[in-house]
């Protein structure tokens, strides 16, 4: 099943600003996708454990709410229904499990304010449903996802942060040394 990413982006950009969805509403929106595809949604009791595990469980409820909103306001909804119908997942809850883990550090705030993170979430959802992007070769999609991978970027960025921190400490030390030398020089002059 192909997803028209440009259309989805346009729909999302054109949607009015609104408060984040409540968790119950988000679960209802996501469960409806399965029902519309004539599939059984994840059982009610599976949501709570799903939202409590993973590498960053604190982010999960808001991530789910953000996904539900993206689906509700854009062409992502009919395409997701079609994708589910075309390739019914063996374990519906596992779809969400895999998806949430790939976007673990992407907070709902980032999704709301950063178009790159929004695109990452949308692409990850499409990937979770086994879909493809219209007009894009699978290899190009893979490279784009690699480029947008916030988890990986954060991990690699840590090196830069450590390096910057070391440089800042070195700079602060040099400034302290220069200030001490200046104070010492001024003292000598007064004497």
């Amino acid at each position, binding site marked *: 099943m192909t997803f028209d990413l440009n259309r989805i982006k346009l729909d999302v950009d054109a949607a009015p600003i609104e408060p984040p969805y409540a968790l119950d509403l988000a679960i209802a929106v996501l469960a409806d996708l399965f029902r519309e595809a004539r599939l059984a949604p994840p059982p009610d009791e599976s949501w709570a454990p799903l939202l409590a595990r993973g590498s960053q469980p604190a982010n999960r409820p808001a991530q789910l709410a953000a996904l539900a909103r993206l689906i509700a306001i854009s062409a992502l909804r009919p395409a997701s229904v079609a994708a589910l119908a075309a390739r019914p997942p063996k374990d519906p809850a596992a779809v969400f499990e895999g998806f949430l883990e790939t976007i673990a550090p992407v907070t709902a705030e980032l999704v709301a304010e950063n178009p790159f993170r929004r695109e990452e979430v949308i692409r990850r959802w499409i990937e979770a449903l086994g879909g493809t992007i219209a007009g894009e070769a699978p290899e190009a999609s893979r490279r784009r996802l690699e480029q947008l991978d916030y988890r990986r970027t954060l991990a690699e960025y840590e090196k830069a942060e450590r390096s910057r921190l070391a440089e800042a400490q070195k700079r*602060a030390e040099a400034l302290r040394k220069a200030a001490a030398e200046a104070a010492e020089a001024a003292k000598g002059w007064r004497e």
Partner: protein
Amino acid sequence: MAPARASRAPVYTEDEIAVAWRDALAVWDMRVELSPPEPYGRSAGQTAWKEDEPLAFIDMKARQVVVNFPLLVEIGARGSLTAVLAHEIGHHARHPHTLGMAAQLELLEKRLLPGLGRSLTNLFFDLLVNEHVGRTRARELADVYRGFLVKDPTVSPMYWFYLAVYEELWGPEAGAIVPPESEAAMEARFAGCRAEARMFAQTFYALPDPYLQFVYFASVFARYIEAEADDGKKGKKKGALGPLSADVPSPDLDDYDGAIYGSPQTERAIDEAKARGWIEEGREPAAAPGPLDAIGQLTAGRPGHEQKAFRQTLVARHYKRLVDQHLIALPAISPPPDPFLPTTLAEWQPGDDPRQIDWTSTVLASGELAATRPLRRELEAEPPEEGAGGPAAVEIYLDTSGSMPNPEAALNAMTLAAQILSASAIRKKGKVRGIIYSMDAVVSEWMYDEEAARRFFLLYAGGGTRFPFPTLAKLAAEKRDVIRVVISDADFLHNLKHEKDAAASLAAGIAASKRFVALLALAPSWKAQIEAAFGDAMRAPQLRIVQVAALNDFGRVATDLAWALFG
């Protein structure tokens, strides 16, 4: 050998240029007041492309995009004409939003990256423009940057990072831009630089306003700029800033004039950057500069021959603003004076203004029949006093010795007082002569123009103080009935005591003046010393001595004096 170049066949046909121009306009989907592109040299009469000039730019005088077509072909980016044109249109239409904003960012840059050799605001605007153009023409833009690297492979750390941002923004479809062999060396020197470029690209473009974007840009780029400066100290070649890096029109004086007073957006952006943890220890921005400091910062980076005129104009405008804060704006046409003098009585007729009826006189004249025969009395304005009015002639003696700051560097309260007095006199159709003195005096001609007077009173000498008593005596002998104002401090009393023939010159000066006012920065406790120094001159009816206890009061006192002297 320019003619040989000119004689070559055109590298683009007229049709190709027209199509590229149309497509470039479509990138921004807006109407612009620009003429279609011309080859460099055809419109402005140039025949050669200078090394440090950009590949393309907007000639604001002709309102035309100018492109070095042969160079575009030479670097192997013949197919990038539309992207280059769209880039230039982007600068004209969108980034910078206004040149006033560009001027504000230039000042902000000096706070965030002090000591920067060359401004990076153009690169910043390029980042914004290229994001938009790159949505549809990333490959074309990448070809231009790649082509220039072939031409000049020197890449500074900062420029490497800048190009890496584009690679991360445009993705693999646009192709690699930085030389592949440089990747490992950069990673070894700046651990995590590639991830930082990716993080930058995916954060910078998501920020909501250009001021915040600029603070983020400066905070991330600072690391690489610093390294570039270190390389420069070690004698390494600095490297170019790319083919499109000097194509934003410069802000003009009006833009800078607005920028020197700061902007709330700038301060908000700095506060937010601090809250987001972008400002590293040791890189905290300096406090917002005052207007004169800001002028100093902006002047410092300009070519030597431009500096003086640029600085003087901005300083003069700043003082004009201060003067205008003290002086109420004069109406263009003076209203007629209010009539209040009663004239003779006459009989009131139906149709006359009932407010003209003088009931007291009517009752006294007609008694009970007053209501039937009312009398009217008109009021008229007082005729101008014989010999009064007419344009005032004012001589202002301004002490510019080292006890007061240079008015271009810091607010000089005495200079401001002179500016207020001269502006008031000239606005009342008067004329002003300035005498600036420290150890020597500079005497102006009679000035009738406020701007000329403003610039004259911005002159500054510094050094010791010697009041020009011989000049006073000479000018007094030349012209009587002049209002003379001395603006000084305790040094004036010292000069009066010790300079040769000072008392006689002062007496002559006072005698030949309509008014002689000494505005002296002295506390009230100096009264006895003032009387002793002035001696017999204290009895002259023309003399007024005004003690200004605090420097901050000079503006107010000068305003009051201006109202008293010139109305």
